[in-house]
Each structure stands twice: as C-alpha cells, then as structure tokens.
C-alpha cells in the first residue's frame, strides 16, 4: 500500500500524469499490445487457416456486406478473402514479437559491449568502438538486409519459412546494438571513475563483478530510453524488410507484409488493404516513440 502510494507520488508518475500526450500514447500502446497478445481470443476469424478462407469474400470493402456471401467485415478483406481486422491483429503479433526480440538482442549485445569497452578501456575499447563506427557508416536497414541475405543463404531451403522470423530478429538486433553500446560506454566511463567503484576495486572484487553488480545498475536509465525508442525503430525496420519482401513470409504476415500486399491494390480502388495496416503501424510506432521521448525527459536529471 505504502509502496503504491510512493510510486503514485514519484516524479516519474507525476510527469506522466501531467502530460496528456503521454497518457494517450500509453493508452494506445496498451490497446494495441493487448490486441496483439489476445489476438486468438479477439480475432473474429483465423486469417491464416486455409480451411476458413472463402475466396468469394475477397475484396470486400469495410462495413459493407459482400455481394456474394453477404458477410460483413469491419475493415474489409484482402484478395484472399481474409478478414483485415484479424490479419492486422495477427500481423501486429509478429511485428511486436520481432521488435521486442530484436531490441532485447541489441540491448544485451550493446550493453555488454559498452560495459566491457568502457570499463576495460585501451585496445579492447578501441576495437569494439571501431567496429561500431564502421557499422554506423552503413544505414542500419542495409546492414539488416545484408545479414538477412547471408543468413538466408545459410539456412536449408525447406527451413526458410520457419526460420524467417528468427533471421529477421537476428538481423535487426545486430544492426541496432551500436547505439546501446555507445550510450553504455559513455555512462560507464563516468561511473568507473566514481569512488564507489574504486572502493570495490580496493577490496579485490573481480572486473566482472564490478561491471555487472556495480556499474550496470547505474547505467540502466539511458538504456531504458533507448530500448523504448529502439522498439519503435525495430518495428519499422521489420515492416520495411517485410515490405521489401525479405522479411516475414506470406504464411506469417506481419504489418509490413500486409502493407506490401495492400500496395498492389491501392490504385485499383481497394484502399483498405493498405490503409488499415499502415495506420496501425503508424499509431504503434508513434505511440511507442512518444513514450520513449517522455521517458527520456522524465529520467534526465538535468531537465528535472
């Protein structure tokens, strides 16, 4: 009870409550996340079960009964007769899963690399940060495509569709670790000269104990901010890759795949096939980004 009150009165909660845009963004994030997670319960159709698909339902406009079957779909259907609403819910699942997993991978890699580079210094630091610099000279989507291509070449053809999601995660994660590494390294450089670190060295604690038990807890707030904004970027990166046709396979379409399918019909009048997945992606990325922005300001001691 007491802890809950303290949390409510904390600076973080205060700045949250006094920023209507942040509250709205958080609301949207919760709604979209809930929709994605609960998709099997909410979705009126199972869009990827070929048994339930009826090609006659193809190209049904939103909220309009289908001329052949008389069925009505909230957001219409695509060329295969799949319910767009259900497809979006399931697509978001894929997008969010890839986004979260990719950010987690980038976070773990980046935090460890940044901690080691910052704490060890010297040539270890030089090597890690030069690799990071080189990687930064390529656009991260290009890096992701490169890794995606290599990984695809390495996986056996019959496994490709199954592995596609994991390959996506690895390629986006590997292309995003640099920003985590840079921020963590910078924070580590500050923390390692603090006297509490010297006190720990004095009693003979090992390097890894100092890095992970002492320094790590003190560099987490910038990591949290980057992870949030990174999530939005990863979702967009996934959508971009899938849109380009190198991402999620049509059997497991993500928001990006849906947009790719939809863009073919935009000029023939079936606008909804593109429009609804695109708007969902926009709202999702924007809301997560706004949350990240708020977090950055709320956690920045200089702005408080």
């Amino acid at each position, binding site marked *: 009870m007491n802890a809950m009150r303290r949390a409510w009165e904390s600076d973080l909660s205060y700045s949250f409550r006094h920023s209507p845009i942040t509250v709205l963004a958080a609301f949207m994030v919760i709604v979209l996340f809930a929709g994605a997670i609960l998709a099997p319960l909410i979705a009126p159709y199972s869009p990827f079960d070929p048994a339930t698909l009826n090609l006659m339902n193809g190209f049904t406009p939103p909220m309009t009964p289908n001329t052949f079957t008389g069925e009505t779909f909230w957001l219409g259907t695509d060329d295969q007769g799949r319910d767009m609403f259900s497809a979006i819910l399931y697509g978001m699942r894929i997008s969010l899963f890839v986004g979260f997993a990719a950010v987690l991978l980038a976070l773990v890699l980046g935090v460890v690399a940044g901690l080691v580079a910052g704490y060890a210094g010297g040539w270890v630091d030089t090597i890690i940060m030069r690799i990071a610099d080189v990687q930064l000279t390529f656009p991260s989507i290009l890096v992701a495509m490169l890794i995606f291509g290599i990984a695809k070449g390495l996986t056996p053809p019959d496994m490709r569709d199954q592995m596609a999601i994991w390959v996506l995660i690895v390629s986006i994660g590997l292309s995003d670790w640099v920003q985590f590494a840079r921020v963590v390294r910078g924070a580590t450089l500050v923390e390692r000269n*603090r*006297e*509490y670190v*010297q*006190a*720990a*060295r*004095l*009693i*003979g*604690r090992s390097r890894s*104990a100092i890095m992970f038990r*002492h320094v790590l*807890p*003190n560099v987490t707030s910038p990591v949290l901010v980057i992870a949030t904004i990174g999530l939005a970027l990863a979702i967009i990166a996934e959508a971009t890759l899938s849109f380009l046709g190198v991402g999620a396979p049509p059997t497991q379409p993500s928001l990006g795949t849906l947009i790719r399918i939809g863009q073919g019909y935009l000029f023939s009048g079936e606008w909804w096939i593109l429009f609804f997945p695109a708007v969902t992606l926009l709202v999702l990325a924007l809301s997560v980004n706004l949350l990240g922005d708020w977090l950055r300001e709320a956690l920045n001691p200089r702005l408080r």
Partner: protein
Amino acid sequence: MTALVRIAGLVRRFDVSKPWLNRLIERAPRQILTAVADVSLEIPERGVYALVGESGSGKSTIGKIAVGLLAPSEGAVEIGGVDLHRERDPARRTETRAHIQMIFQDPYASLNPRWRVRDIIEEPVRARGDRSEGLAERLLEQVGLSARDADKFPHEFSGGQRQRICVARALASEPRFIVCDEPTSALDVSVQAQVLNLMKDLQERLGLTYLFISHDLSVVRYMADRIGVLYLGRLVEEAPRDALFETPRHPYTRMLLEAAPRIDAFGREVDPPKGEIPDPINPPTGCAYHPRCPFADERCKRERPAMRDAGASRAACHAVEEGRL
C-alpha cells in the same frame, strides 16, 4: 614502535602525451608527468600520518598507491611487511588487502546509489565469502547511525551521514590501516566536526593506523601526530605535529602556515605569497620551490636539496641546511 606502513623511494609517472597520431603530426614529444617523486615515509602502528599539500602535490596519488589502486612506477609500499604489487602468494595478498581500507572525499560518489546500505557495508566481508549477519547493523550503530538504516538507500542520507556509512564500510573488513583522502573537505563545518571526532575516536579505540590526506592545515592539526608536507610530488618537510606548527623549517611550510586564513586575524594585512604552483610537467630545476622562495639563491636553482634531519623534523632545503634560515 614498529612501522606498519613503509613507503620507500616511491615514484609515479603518468603519460599525459597526446595520442600517437597527434604526436606524429605535430611533432610533439611524449609528455611525462611525475606526480610523485622519490617519497619515503613510515607510519608506525596506531599512528596518524598526514600528508598536506596543494593541488598537484601528489598526495592523492600516494594514497591510491598505498591502498593498491595504482601501481608505483618505482619504489615500494609495504604494509605489515607485504608489498601488494610484488607479493605473489594469493593468501597473503588477500589477507593484506583486508587490512587496508580507504575513505574517499566525495560522500555522494563513494556509495553505489543503487545498493542498499546493508549491501554496501557488508560487501567487503561477503566478497571474501564470510558470513555477515548483523554486521551492518552493528557497524551502523558504531558510527552513530541507527540499525534500521541498513535497509535504506544512500540518497536518503545527508552528506555527513553518508560519510559515516563510508566509515562503517571501511571498518567492515576489520582493517588495520585506513587511507583517508580528504574525508571531510566536502562537508560543512558542523558536520565535519562530527566526522572528524568519529574518525579520531575509532582510531584510538580500535588501534587503527591512518594515512590522512588533506589540504586543510587546521584539520590536519586536529587529526595527525606526524605531518609530511608535499610540493610538486616531493616531500619537502616532515615533522611531528607540534614541531611543524611551532617551528616550521621549510620556506614552503612557512608560507602555507602564513597564508592559511586564521580565525583570529581580523583585518590582518598579510603580504600574500608570490607566484603559483608551477606546471608539474616541466617542474623548475633544482629545488622546485625556488621561483617562489624568498630565500632562494644560485645553489637552489641548480641543485635539488636532499632530505636532512633537523631536530625532530626532516626538511629538504639548502637554506635550512646551511643555517641561513
């Protein structure tokens, strides 16, 4: 009395050159800063030895070498006969390390903000794998805090209370020797008095040996029994407390005592000391203090004075040696 801490011929150099590419392009030579130059001193068991000096005197560097945070470039530091930088027997190293502790200047930076006070205080003991039940509570009460404070985080305490927690942490491994690096210079006067009294009480009660580093002569006068005065990395004078304050030998010590603000000196018109501390990368030849010294002559510019006994004191000064002073 036997010496617990023996520092002999200690030298520490830092490479402060620019990166090699810059050196190559600008044709700049390597730059070496000698922070500590040939310092030798002994601290008896249960003694309080103070190092005083202004910025760049090397006093903090000596402290860090003494506890093993920095390696010496030359010379040795022995604590209870063990040199941490040369000892190869891991058991003796661990044992000696447990005997050494340090209290730092900034009470806000020396406690990990994400750790509970209990974990902070007990870390030295737990890191050894020893049991630590009730240790934090006992130590907190010993330094004048409450046992209930063990579950709080550092930000819930004031500067003085944090420094007490630092003292408690330093005591946890039951050390014999504690290096105190400006432990009260970040504190207010009324709080400084609390911490100094506490440190002095503990020293007497637990038989601790202190190396006390400070720029504040009045604090040193309160704490130390023997005082070494550093200038540009060299010991220029060393004396028992009363001798240093009553009959300072070295001109630099005299200047420090004269220049320190005095509380009974209303409207005192002092002739302020001349000059500032020179660049430690290119120290003056001969006696490093000669450009500012009112007693300097040709010999002082040429020849570096050696440390010589003068009564209960030691001083490195040609003028003192020649009886000109």
